[in-house]
């Protein structure tokens, strides 16, 4: 954990935005370069990203890592509000600050077939997973043609990607949940990442079919390192922190917050 960056601890570092690629309106792939190499990153682990300019927005924003190499890191960022709008408006060469990798990724599944179900930007961890273990099966759901740019880009990186769209305008009509019906409880596991509504549906479907299932949660975060108690989620084991106990949880444990 020691280096010679601006902070001895490489938990947080300055990075340069080296490339910004717009996949479709309000959806970007941001590539960063760091002076120091990144440690090994598990799919599902995330970073918190902020600008180094002013103090507004104050907090970093959490994003799953979707690609790495040596001292390079890639994020898939959708404009969701003020913070992401600012992050996505920065020009290349801008310097930012990145904290991480944080949290626990999806647990390795030796001997099992892994089905990854993604809702829109929820594809991010599976792009990384595919980089590391090519034999996973990835199913991506999008609302419709507006997100087609994401599907095209992801399909280039994940040959065999199954794309679903709710309005049937791209790929298969419907959602990735459809594939759960074909899975085998003893041989298959599900990894899911996407909006909370989708995760709940995946949870229910896997529960019903007794398919082991891991889900990556999204909660508001201030610190990302377990200090603020802001990111808790109700589980069968009581309140757990999404940032350090998750963001990936066994879906049977998650009771949600509402």
């Amino acid at each position, binding site marked *: 954990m020691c280096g010679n960056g*601006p902070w*001895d*601890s490489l938990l*947080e570092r300055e990075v340069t935005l080296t490339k910004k690629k717009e996949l479709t309106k309000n959806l970007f792939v941001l590539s960063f370069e760091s002076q120091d190499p990144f440690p090994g990153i598990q799919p599902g682990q995330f970073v918190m990203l902020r600008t180094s300019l002013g103090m507004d927005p*104050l*907090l970093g924003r959490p994003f799953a890592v979707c690609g790495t190499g040596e001292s390079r890191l890639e994020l898939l960022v959708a404009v969701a509000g003020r913070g992401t709008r600012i992050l996505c408006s920065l020009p290349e060469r801008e310097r930012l600050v990145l904290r991480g990798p944080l949290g626990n990724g999806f647990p390795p599944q030796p001997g099992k077939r892994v089905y990854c179900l993604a809702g829109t930007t929820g594809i991010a961890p599976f792009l990384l997973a595919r980089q590391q273990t090519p034999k996973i099966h990835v199913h991506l759901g999008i609302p419709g043609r507006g997100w087609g740019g994401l599907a095209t880009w992801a399909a280039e990186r994940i040959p065999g990607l199954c794309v679903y769209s709710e309005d049937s305008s791209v790929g298969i009509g419907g959602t990735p949940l459809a594939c759960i019906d074909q899975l085998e409880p003893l041989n298959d596991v599900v990894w899911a990442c996407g909006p909370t509504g989708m995760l709940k549906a995946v949870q229910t479907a896997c529960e019903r079919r007794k398919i082991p299932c891991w889900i990556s949660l999204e909660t508001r975060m*201030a610190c990302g*390192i377990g200090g603020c*108690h802001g990111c808790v989620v109700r589980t069968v084991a009581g309140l757990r922190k999404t940032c350090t106990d998750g963001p990936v949880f066994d879906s049977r444990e998650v009771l949600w917050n509402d």
Partner: protein
Amino acid sequence: MIDRPVSSSISIGGVLLRSPLIIASGTWPHEPEYWKGPICSFVGAACTKALTLRPREGNPGIRLWETPCGLLNSIGLQNPGVDSFLRDDLPKISSGDVGIVVNVAMESEEETAEVLARLSVFEDRFLSMELNISCPNVDAGGMAWGSDPVLAARAVDLARQCWRGPLWAKLPPQCGNIAEVARAVEEAGADALVVANTWLGMAMDPVSEKPVFSRNVAGLSGPAIFPLALRLVWEVSSSVHIPVIGCGGISKTEDVISMMLAGASAVAIGTFHFSDLGCFRNIGRGLLEHLAAKGYSSPMDLIGKGKK
């Protein structure tokens, strides 16, 4: 001007800290790796999350809401209870090299007495005990204790009887007259004052058309409140003789210098390290450079200098 070595250490009513930078309560992980090594090299002490007698779940619903240069929180004293803290957390955080300030949330007098009794067994493990009479995020107790001179004195008086070590009282920013509360607390035997906690704020969700937080109000922290906290420190430090620890929105070296010039003996930093873990180091180094440039030998030379 003679070149003397500059030390960053300070003393708060007899408690020696290697730096005037304290990590504010409720913001730092109770994990061993955060209580030692380079990440803490400019940290003088760290406060624990507030403890209560029994475990508390804290508040339901949304707990965090970013505001311009600030953060609203409604954590609501989530903690495992004093026994679990002593058993599981204390050994972990004691293994580091950072002094521990144990933060105790004022509950009923009986509960608080009991918490202090159990902590007293480990008194030597703590630099001091910070009595939190200023939490805005709970219904019973919390801020109400600190908003009134009589109640505040009663709380500190009780704590004084149950705790022999150094006792700091953490005041709420909103009370009719903070100087009066401060004087009452000093008289009741506090060794230092922490000025202050988060400020009562609120957020609305334009979509659901409801308050964001389950308790409607929440506590505002972060750089946004710095000028307000500085004014309180200026006012309180002129009204009491015990040391004041400035807290609220500190994010840069100038903020620490300003707080100390206004009368603070040390400062506590919370929200800003959420966005910048390097802040302790940057602020600490900047402080040493400033002291050297000004020809001071210790940060203590700054305390209250802005009043003259």
